[in-house]
């Protein structure tokens, strides 16, 4: 057998495969618990200097991660270049803002609507747009993102350019109060939802839908020839991505309590796309790593004031050149079997 290069990922992978269910369970619990415990950390090394680390943990870190996981279904898994992901985020945010003002529903009851409207938007856009490919699709989605923002600016019924203020937060649940003061419950809530979404996405990835998406990404024509209903699965990817975006938007609105259309610009779409590619398209863990880093680094660099985006841009170029497929690229662990002859 060839000597393997020292590779943490392989070492962990080998260990994970040979681990007993109990060992796996313990590891899972510890890792998840660590993430839940993050707001209690008070470590000057990881703290952000100018902003509150606890607050940063919620936005951008975990919210970026949630959106990146959603966008990853679209871009990473199915290979659909979506430059208008912010639209779903905005739809979710506005759904919560408008419905909590106009109806007596609380945050938890509105959440399904926020996701539902985002999914509906995905369907309405996806049906015509997903017949197109590659860069043509990219420009249509980009346009969609802008259109949603322009409509929000020009619709006085949803606050126009000034947006909506006095958005209520979530009502207490399991003894957690969601005060605007304390970002931690929001962090925990989003983290919980993120774990749920990861669970769902992983489940799909390992089954028929995951294979269909991968096949579409690899070669759409061939996937179609092999009986994959490509349009249907692309639509599903779009809708699932949209639902996660809408979810993130509703949580965001419930936290910041006032939203304006100018919060939902193309830049946010690009940022989330960058998280996906920077971390490693198609690999959910890589994508999360990308989101955490791209959310964290600008906050950490805030002390550089003007120069921080300069460094940030430079970092993106350098990193992509060093690791073109992202920090943790999608990689299947191949298994070799000796042929029994």
């Amino acid at each position: 057998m060839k000597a393997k290069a020292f590779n943490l990922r392989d070492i962990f992978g080998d260990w994970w495969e040979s681990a007993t269910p109990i060992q796996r369970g313990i590891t899972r619990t510890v890792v998840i618990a660590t993430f839940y415990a993050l707001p209690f950390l008070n470590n000057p090394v990881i703290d952000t200097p100018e902003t509150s680390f606890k607050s940063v943990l919620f936005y951008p870190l975990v919210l970026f991660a949630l959106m990146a996981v959603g966008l990853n279904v679209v871009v990473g898994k199915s290979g659909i270049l979506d430059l208008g992901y912010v639209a779903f985020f905005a739809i979710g945010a506005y759904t919560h803002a408008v419905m909590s003002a106009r109806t007596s529903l609380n945050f938890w009851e509105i959440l399904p609507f926020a996701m539902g409207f985002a999914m509906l938007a995905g369907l309405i856009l996806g049906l015509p747009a997903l017949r197109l490919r590659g860069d043509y699709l990219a420009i249509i989605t980009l346009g969609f993102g802008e259109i949603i923002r322009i409509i929000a600016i020009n619709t006085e019924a949803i606050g126009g350019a000034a947006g909506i203020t006095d958005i209520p937060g979530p009502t207490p649940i399991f003894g957690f109060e969601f005060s605007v003061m304390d970002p931690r419950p929001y962090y925990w809530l989003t983290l919980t939802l993120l774990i749920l979404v990861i669970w769902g996405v992983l489940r799909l990835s390992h089954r028929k839908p995951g294979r269909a998406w991968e096949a579409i990404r690899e070669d759409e024509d061939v996937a179609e020839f092999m009986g994959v209903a490509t349009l249907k699965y692309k639509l599903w990817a779009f809708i699932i991505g949209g639902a996660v975006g809408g979810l993130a938007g509703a949580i965001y609105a419930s936290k910041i309590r006032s939203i304006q259309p100018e919060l939902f610009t193309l830049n946010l779409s690009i940022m989330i796309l960058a998280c996906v590619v920077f971390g490693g398209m198609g690999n959910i863990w890589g994508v999360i790593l990308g989101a955490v880093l791209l959310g964290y680094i600008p906050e950490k660099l805030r002390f550089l004031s003007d120069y921080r985006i300069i460094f940030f841009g430079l970092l993106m170029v350098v990193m992509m050149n060093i690791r073109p497929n992202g920090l943790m690229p999608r990689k299947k662990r191949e298994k070799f079997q000796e042929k029994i002859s």
Partner: protein
Amino acid sequence: MTKKLLEIQNLVVKFGGVTALNEVNLHVNEGEIAALIGPNGAGKTTVFNIVTGYYKPVSGDVLVDGNSVLGLRPYLIARMGLGRTFQNIRLFGDMTALENVATAADALNKSGLLSALFGLGRSRRDEKRSMETAQSLLEFIGLDHRAHQMAKNLPYGDQRRLEIARALALNPKVLLLDEPAAGFNPQEKVELGDLILKIRDKGYAVLLIEHDMSLVMKISDRISVLDFGQKIAEGTPSEIQKNQRVIDAYLGVAEDAS
């Protein structure tokens, strides 16, 4: 009378004014290996692209097991019983061999995305079926030891055979093979011929596009010849070999291609 599993009637195809196929009639009978030969640019691959629904013909009809498939999306045609391979290998490179085959096997499962998400029994049964189908097909073509390797990392010959396994996962009525022997050495060609015969013996009808005449002559039951979008001859291998028109139009020119 033998059943015609695939039938092409009076097919006319034009690309921007150029006639690619002109009034072509073809069919594949149950349990036979039919071959389609002709010089480069004669329109052979176009036939595949028409019957699998990728292009639309100007006129004519395509019947799969007696039903017209004209105007259907390619994936539906595939599910109705046409599996194909490609002249230039087009596997899902970043997926494992097993996944490549399972993807096609999935097409015959009814369970959808939601049942996969919520782990309903039907989806679990389907998942098992896909995996078992894929595994047994890999065994059939002798690739089971490479099941968990990525398709793009397989040797060339294995990639060609994997494409065949993937097409078979659709449980096709007719298997369409587009130059399966391209790039093979003589030994591999012999093995391929045996494999195609084995496939026929399993009960699949085969439509074969191939430049290698010795292979075509050896395994085909019936051969059709295309030249400049026209069918110029049809018959058993021995008939075709004797056909003066084929010899004039084709054999003398194309011998170097193999």
